[in-house]
C-alpha cells in the first residue's frame, strides 16, 4: 500500500498550545512522582511558569498568519491575542487557587495540570478552523471543567454542580454532533472554509439551505450553551455556585472566551453569507441573555451566584461584539470586552475567595457587611470591580461596554444596543447592593479575612488594570485593533 504522506506540520504555528499541553502532561508526572503532598503549591508555581512560557513563546509569532495540520489550525493575531487572554486568565486563576485549595482541604496536584489542559482547550478553540477540531476543543475544555467543578470534594454542591454541568454538557454535545452531521450532510466537509465556500455558492442552485441551516443552528446552540446564552444558560448559576471559587472564576471568563472565539470563526469563516438567518436569532438570544442574566442577578443574595448571573448578562454584552465581528469593531469589542471582563470578574472572584475561610463559604451579602471597616483596601478593590462590571466610568468596564455598544450599533443592531443599556441600568442595582453592604453598613463582627500573597497579586493586578484601562484605554485599544487586521477575510 501507499506509504502514508503526513502533511507538513508547522509546529511553530501552534507553539503556545504545544507548550501548554506538553508542560501539562509533564507536570502531571512531575507532580505525581516528585512533589510531595502538602507542597503542591510548587505544582501551581510550575504551572504558572508553563503558562508564562507559553505566552512568551507566542511573542515572536506576533503578526504571523498561517495554517497548519492541513488547515485545521490557524494562527492569526486574533487567535494569538485570545491565547494571551486565556493564558492570563489561567495564570490569575491559578494564582488565586494556590492558597484556596489547601484552605478548603482539597489540595491535589492534578488541579493545576487540569487548568492547563482547559487552557489548551480554549487555545484550540481559538485556533481551530475545522468543526471537528472545535468539537474536540470544546470537549477538552468541558471534560476538564467537569472534573474541576467537582473538585471541592467534601462539599456536596460541588459534585451536584459537576453532575448538572456534565449532564447538560453531554446533552449539548449531542446537539453539537448532530449539527456537525447535518452540516456535513449539506456541505460535505467540516472545514469552516469549505463550509463557507459552500454557503457562498447559494444562487448556484445546489445549496441545501435547510440542511445547512439546521446543522448550523444546532452547532450554534452548542456554542450558546457554552457561552451561557439564554435559554441555554440554566446550568450557569448552579455550576458557578457549586464549583470551587477559582474554577468558577476561570469558567466565567475561560469557557465563554473559548466558545466565543470559536463562534466568531464559525460565523465569519463558515457562515458569513448566511448572516441574514443567524443574525436575528443570535441577536434575539443575546437580548434575552442580557435580560435574563441581569434580572436573575437582582434577586440574588448570594454574591457568588449573583456573579454567575452577572456573567450571563455579560455574555450578552460580549455577544454584541461577536455578532458583528464581520465589521472592524466587532472583534475588537469582543476581545476588549473579554479582557476587561476577565480582569474585573477575576478580581471580584478573588475578593470572594479572600472572604472564604476554612471549609466555609462567605458568599452571602451579609458577609460583605462593613467590609470597608474591616479591610478597606479589599472593599475598595471590590467596589472598583463592581463599578467596572456595572459599567460605570471611569472603570474599564465602562469603556468595554461603550465599545461593545458602539460595535453593535455599527453592526446594524441599534435595538440590541438599546436593550444593552437598559439592562445595564438594571444591572447597576445588584452591583451597587454589594457596594452598599461593604461601605454603608456595620460589620457583622466577622474577623478580618486573611489575604495571601497570591490573592493580593490577583486583586491588585485586576484593580489597577481595571482603573488604568478605564482611564487610558487607548494603548489597549490600539493593541487589540492591530491584532485584528487579518481577521474577517480568508
Amino acid at each position: 500500500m501507499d506509504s502514508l504522506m503526513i502533511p507538513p506540520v508547522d509546529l511553530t504555528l501552534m507553539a503556545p498550545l504545544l507548550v501548554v499541553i506538553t508542560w501539562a502532561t509533564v507536570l502531571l508526572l512531575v507532580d505525581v512522582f516528585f512533589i510531595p503532598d502538602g507542597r503542591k503549591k510548587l505544582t501551581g508555581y510550575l504551572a504558572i511558569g508553563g503558562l508564562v512560557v507559553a505566552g512568551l513563546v507566542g511573542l515572536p509569532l506576533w503578526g504571523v498568519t498561517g495554517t497548519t495540520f492541513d488547515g485545521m489550525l490557524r494562527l492569526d493575531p486574533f487567535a494569538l491575542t485570545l491565547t494571551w487572554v486565556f493564558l492570563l486568565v489561567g495564570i490569575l486563576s491559578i494564582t488565586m487557587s494556590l492558597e484556596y485549595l489547601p484552605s478548603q482541604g482539597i489540595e491535589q496536584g492534578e488541579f493545576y495540570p487540569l487548568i492547563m489542559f482547559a487552557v489548551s482547550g480554549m487555545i484550540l478553540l481559538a485556533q481551530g478552523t475545522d468543526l471537528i477540531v472545535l468539537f474536540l476543543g470544546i470537549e477538552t475544555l468541558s471534560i476538564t471543567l467537569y472534573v474541576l467543578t467537582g473538585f471541592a470534594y467534601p462539599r456536596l454542591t460541588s459534585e451536584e454542580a459537576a453532575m448538572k454541568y456534565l449532564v447538560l454538557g453531554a446533552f449539548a454535545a449531542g446537539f453539537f454532533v448532530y449539527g456537525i452531521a447535518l452540516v456535513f450532510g449539506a456541505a460535505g466537509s467540516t472545514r469552516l472554509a469549505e463550509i463557507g465556500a459552500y454557503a457562498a455558492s447559494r444562487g448556484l442552485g445546489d445549496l441545501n439551505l435547510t440542511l445547512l441551516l439546521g446543522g448550523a443552528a444546532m452547532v450554534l446552540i452548542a456554542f450558546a450553551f457554552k457561552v451561557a446564552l439564554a435559554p441555554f444558560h440554566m446550568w450557569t448559576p448552579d455550576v458557578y455556585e457549586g464549583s470551587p471559587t477559582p474554577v468558577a472564576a476561570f469558567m466565567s471568563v475561560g469557557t465563554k472566551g473559548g466558545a466565543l472565539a470559536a463562534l466568531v470563526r464559525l460565523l465569519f469563516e463558515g457562515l458569513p453569507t448566511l448572516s441574514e438567518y443567524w443574525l436575528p436569532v443570535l441577536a434575539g438570544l443575546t437580548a434575552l441573555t442580557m435580560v435574563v442574566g441581569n434580572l436573575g442577578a437582582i434577586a440574588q443574595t448570594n454574591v457568588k451566584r449573583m456573579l454567575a448571573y452577572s456573567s450571563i448578562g455579560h455574555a450578552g454584552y460580549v455577544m454584541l461584539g461577536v455578532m458583528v465581528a464581520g465589521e472592524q469593531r466587532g472583534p475588537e469589542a469582543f476581545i476588549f470586552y473579554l479582557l476587561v471582563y476577565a480582569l474585573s470578574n477575576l478580581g471580584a472572584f478573588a475578593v470572594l475567595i479572600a472572604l472564604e475561610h476554612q471549609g466555609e463559604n462567605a458568599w452571602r451579602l451579609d458577609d460583605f457587611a462593613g467590609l470597608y471597616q474591616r479591610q478597606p483596601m479589599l472593599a475598595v478593590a471590590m467596589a472598583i470591580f463592581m463599578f467596572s462590571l456595572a459599567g460605570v466610568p471611569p472603570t474599564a468596564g465602562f469603556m468595554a461596554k461603550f465599545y461593545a455598544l458602539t460595535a453593535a450599533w455599527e453592526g446594524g443592531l441599534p435595538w440590541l444596543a438599546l436593550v444593552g443599556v437598559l439592562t445595564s441600568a438594571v444591572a447597576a442595582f445588584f452591583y451597587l447592593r454589594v457596594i452598599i453592604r461593604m461601605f454603608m453598613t456595620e460589620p457583622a463582627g466577622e474577623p478580618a479575612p486573611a489575604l495571601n500573597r497570591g490573592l493580593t497579586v490577583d486583586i491588585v493586578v485586576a484593580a489597577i488594570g481595571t482603573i488604568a484601562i478605564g482611564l487610558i484605554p487607548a494603548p489597549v485599544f490600539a493593541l487589540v485593533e492591530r491584532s485584528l487586521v487579518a481577521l474577517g477575510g480568508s
Partner: protein
Amino acid sequence: MELLIWLIPLLPFIGFLLNVFVIRREREAGLVASGLVAAAFVVTLIAVAMLAGMPPEERRIVSTAWEWINTGSFRVPFAIMFDPLTAVMALLITGVGALIHVYSIGYMHGDPRVVRYFAYLNLFVTMMLFLVMANNLLLLFLGWEGVGLCSFLLIGFWFERKSASAAAVKAFVVNRIGDAAFILAMLAVFAYFGTLNFYGDGEGGQLGFLERVSDIAGLRIGPDWQPIFVSTAISFLLLIGATGKSAQFPLFVWLPDAMAGPTPVSALIHAATMVTGGVYLMARAEPLFVASFTTQGWVAWIGALTALLAGTAAMAQWDIKRVLAYSTVSQLGFMVAACGMGAYVAAIFHLLTHGIFKALLFLAAGSVIHGTHDTQDMRRMGGLKDAMPTTFRTYVIGALALAGIVPFAGFWSKDEILAHAISHGHTPIFVLLFLTSLLTAFYMGRQVALVFFGTQRDPSYHPHESPQVMTVPLVVLAVGATIGGAINVPALHWLTDWLEPVLHEKAGEFNLWLALIATAGAGGMGYLGWWVYTSNAAKIKIGGKDPAYRYSGDIWKGMEEAWYFDRLYQRTVVVGFERLADFLARVFDPQGVDGLVMGVGRFFGGLANGVRALQTGYVRTYALVFTVGVLIVLGVMLWFAR
C-alpha cells in the same frame, strides 16, 4: 445735580450700613439714623429748589449709575430720576421720615434691639426713595419689594410675639401676590415697548415707555372671542400690584395685622409712605392708566369700595391702632378712587396731606401707647386728655384733618377728590366716598372720645406724657396737618402747577356748596361720634361690647371683622392651599410620583423572581428549557429559510 440726587437715597443707605456694621450703641444709632434722614431731607429740598429753577418742561433729571441687567434685548439700567412728582414724594418721605426717626429715639428707648430698628428704618427710607426715584419699573420694583422687606422686618420687629411674626409673614406674602401681577405687568411692558424705562435720558436716546404709550393704542391681545387692549392688560396688572402694596380690596387684609409692629413704623410705613406706593405707581404710570378706560373704572370702584369697606371697619375697632389702620386703608381708597377718576393731582395731594396727618395720628397714638404702658385697647383708656395734653391736642388736630374739617389739611385734599367726582360725573363713586368721609368723621370722633374723654377705665397704669423727643415731632406734624392744605388750596393750586409737567392736569374748580355740605356733614358726624361715646362712656367695659352693638347687632360684628374677608381667605385660600400642599407632599408625591418610580423597581423585582422561579434546581427542567431554546432557534432559522 445728578450726584446730588444720588445723595438722597444714599444718605439713609449709609445710615443703614453704619447701623448694621459699625454702630452698637443705642444713642448713636438714633442720632446717626435721624441725622442722615434729615440730611436727605435737606438735600431733597435743595434738589427741589434747583428743579424749581428750571423751565417747567425740562424739570426732570435722569441719572444712570450702571447697566443693571443686560442680556439680549433685555436691558435695564440702574437709573434714578428726579422730577416734580418724585420731588414731592421724596420730600414727604424724608421729611416725615426724619420726624419719625426722631420720635423713635424716644419711643424705642430701652429696646434691646434698637440699633437694628434704626438700621431697618434707614433701609426702609432708602428703598422708599428708590421706589419713588426709579426711572424704570424694575428699579421701582426693587424699591417696592425692598420696602416690603423692611415692612416685614419692622412688623416682625418684636418677633417673639406670635402675632407679630404671623403679621410680618402675612404682609410679605400678600404683597407678593400683588407683586406677581406687577412682574407680569413689567413683562408685558417690556414685551410691547422693549424697555422698562419710564422716560428717556433726555439726551436723544431711546424714549421711555411712558412717553410712548401711544405705541400700544388699539393693540389687542388674547383670544379672538375676548380680546383685550394691551393698555388695559398692563394697567390692570399694575392695579393688582398696587392693591397689594396700597392695601386695597381684595388684598387689604395684611395692613390691620401689620399694626403689630412698633407704632412709629406704622406711622412711617403703614400710613405715610409705603402704602402710598401703589398710588404713586398709578400716578407715575398715569399715561398707561388713562389709556385704558376699563382699568380706570376698576381703579375707581376698587378705591371707592375699599374706602367704604375700611371706613365701616374702622368704626368698630377697639384697638387704637387698628382704627387708624382701617382708616388708612379707607383713605388710600380715596386716593385710588381719585386716580381712577383721573384726579391724579388730587390723589397726590391727598397722599401728601394724609401722609402728614396720619403720621401725626399714629405718632400720637404711639405716644398714648407709650404713656399708658403699652395699652392699645381703647376700652382700657379714657380721660387721658389731662394726663397727656400735648398728645391730646395734636391728636385732635390730626383727627380734624382726617375728618376733613376746614381749614385742616385733610379738608382741602379730600374736598378736591369729591369735587372732581362730582364735576366729572362719577356720581356713584362720589356717593360712596362722601359716605366714607362721614364715617371717617364719626370714627375719629368716637376714637377721641374713647381715648381722651371720660374717665380712665383701667386703673392699673398711670398715664404720663411722653418725653420731648416724641412730642416735638408731634407738634411739628400738627403744624403741618393744620396748614398743609395750603400747598394746593383752590386759589393757588401750587401743587397742580408743580405737577403739571408730569400729570398734565389743570386745576379743578372749587365747589363751594360741596365744601360746605361736606364740612357740615363731617363736623356733624364727628360730633355725633364724640357725643355717642362720651355719653355712653359708662357702658364701655373692658372686654365688653360696643354700645352700638345693641342697635346693629351682627352688622357691627361684621364691621369689627372687616366683613370677614380675612377669615374668608383663611378658610378658603389658605386652608385650601395648605390642604393641597399637604396632599401633594404626603400622598401624591410619595405614592403617586415616587410610587411610580418604586413601581418600576418592583416590576423588575417581580421579573427577577420569575427568573428565579424558573431556576428550579432540577437538571431536567434545565434540559427542558434548553430544548425549548433549540426549537425556537431551529424554528426561527427555518422560518427564515422558507
